[in-house]
């Protein structure tokens, strides 16, 4: 356990040193926040709500969503697949802590740091320019934090699982593209899921992606009340467990068949 905590701290500190990169990302997230917010508000138009979201919900969805991109790490992550392709994974596998556990710990640390700047900046910018929706029930706050935590785990598990294909398949682009397509289109980032037609919605919720963004946002927005929030959290927990177990299984399979190139 102390090793796990140490790794979490290490992840936090490592990403805390990238100050300028973090600010740059927060800036870009804010620009995209404006783009998406205006767009979705225009989609809402003069109606009271669209897909169950009113104007405040829409704005909060977009801005907190942009903030969560950095926390949940929705974009390209090639750390593991790079290490597999270069053979460095052999050293990782020799260490006393399983690489899956190690990566999870570091990712939690990274998410903790991201929750400060990368979540904070877009939310503040959004609040300055648009009326946002603030949770009305006190219970929503801890539920939302838990939901984000689970979202990070689901995201790490999915990225890890997708990266494991590097053991069999040297192509880096394919798996990375699958992750990007899912994390932008099926997570609720490009379009809030309730706006998609029914078949697409059903398909999306069967993948891990909505559990990384749409779920925590719906918990925060108190969509459907506390019962629905608990349902979402339960789904996230199941998704997290699912991807982690699958990742562990696939990794065990890979290690058994592993041949490291060169000496």
């Amino acid at each position, binding site marked *: 356990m102390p090793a796990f905590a140490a790794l979490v701290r290490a992840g936090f500190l490592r990403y805390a040193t990238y100050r300028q990169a973090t600010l740059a*990302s927060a800036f870009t997230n804010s620009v995209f926040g404006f783009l998406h917010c*205006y767009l979705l508000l225009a989609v809402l138009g003069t109606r009271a709500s669209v897909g169950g979201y009113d104007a405040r919900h829409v704005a909060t969805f977009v801005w907190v969503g942009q903030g969560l991109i950095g926390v949940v790490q929705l974009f390209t992550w090639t750390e593991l697949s790079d290490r597999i392709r270069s053979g460095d994974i052999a050293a990782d596998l020799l260490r006393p802590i399983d690489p899956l556990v190690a990566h999870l710990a570091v990712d939690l640390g990274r998410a903790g740091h991201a929750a400060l700047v990368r979540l904070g900046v877009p939310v503040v910018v959004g609040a300055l320019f648009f009326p946002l929706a603030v949770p009305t029930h006190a219970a929503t706050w801890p539920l939302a934090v838990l939901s984000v935590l689970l979202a990070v785990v689901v995201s790490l598990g999915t990225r890890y699982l997708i990266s494991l294909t590097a053991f069999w*398949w040297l192509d880096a682009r394919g798996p990375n593209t699958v992750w990007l*397509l899912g994390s932008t289109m099926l997570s609720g980032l490009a379009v809030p899921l309730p*706006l998609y037609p029914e078949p697409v919605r059903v398909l999306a919720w069967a993948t891990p992606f909505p559990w990384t963004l749409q779920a925590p946002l719906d918990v925060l927005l108190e969509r459907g009340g506390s019962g629905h929030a608990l349902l979402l959290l339960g789904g996230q927990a199941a998704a997290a467990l699912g991807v982690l177990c699958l990742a562990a299984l696939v990794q065990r399979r890979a290690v058994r068949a592993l041949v490291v190139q060169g000496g």
Partner: protein
Amino acid sequence: MYVRLLSAQLRSQTQYRLSFAVDLVLNVAITVIGVLVVLTLFAAAGPTLGGLSLAEGLLVAGLAEAAFQTADLVVGNIERLPVYVRTGLLDAVLVRPLSSLGQLLVADAAPRRLGRVAQAAAVLGVALAVNDVDWTPSRVVLVVLAPVCGAVTYASIFVAGATTTFWLLGAGETANAFTYGGRDFATYPTPVYGTWFRRVFGYGLGLAAVAYLPALTLLGRDDPLGLPGWVGWSPPLVAAAWCGIAALAWRFGVRHYRSTGS
């Protein structure tokens, strides 16, 4: 023994082809999903979004995508400038008597991006057909001129954004706000955006001229925001201005470049 060698050979070949096939499928999927997102938002909005119908919106999206993908094809590699700086490749390039920018652009040429351009052109073609454009000679010129100028605009934004690598940490991420953000902005009708944002991005950066303004001219529509009719022909002006900015930025950046030391 030979059977084993042969089967190994076959397996490696199909792996290669499988990779190529998956790549192709994914590329098509990206384009199709992109169009579906635009259609979903227009469908969710009701009869119009930003003053345009779904079919008209598809034309705007098609023009923007054609411009962006063409730019990505030609200068997309410039996004890797931070990598070239870090690995010292830029130093090697600068020492040679050829244009540094030219060398960098052909360094990792990606013919696969041609597929994305072709797909964008297909979307544009469908959009033009669906909108039943009343073709006049000037409109025929515009429908080619707009994406070409749009491509020059995006390419210049790509290059100018990349030059910030020379003097700004985290430059890549900041540039994304204007390259990919610029693409997103132009994909939808300009009236969608709030007043000051529209003024900065649409008119200040000229992004309204990439797709929305030419689309209005092609459709024979007046600008609901009250701009005069000739703005549909502003793409060449915007492209020329951005070209100048990119050239200056590149020259300035390279001159002030301090290598990582070798």
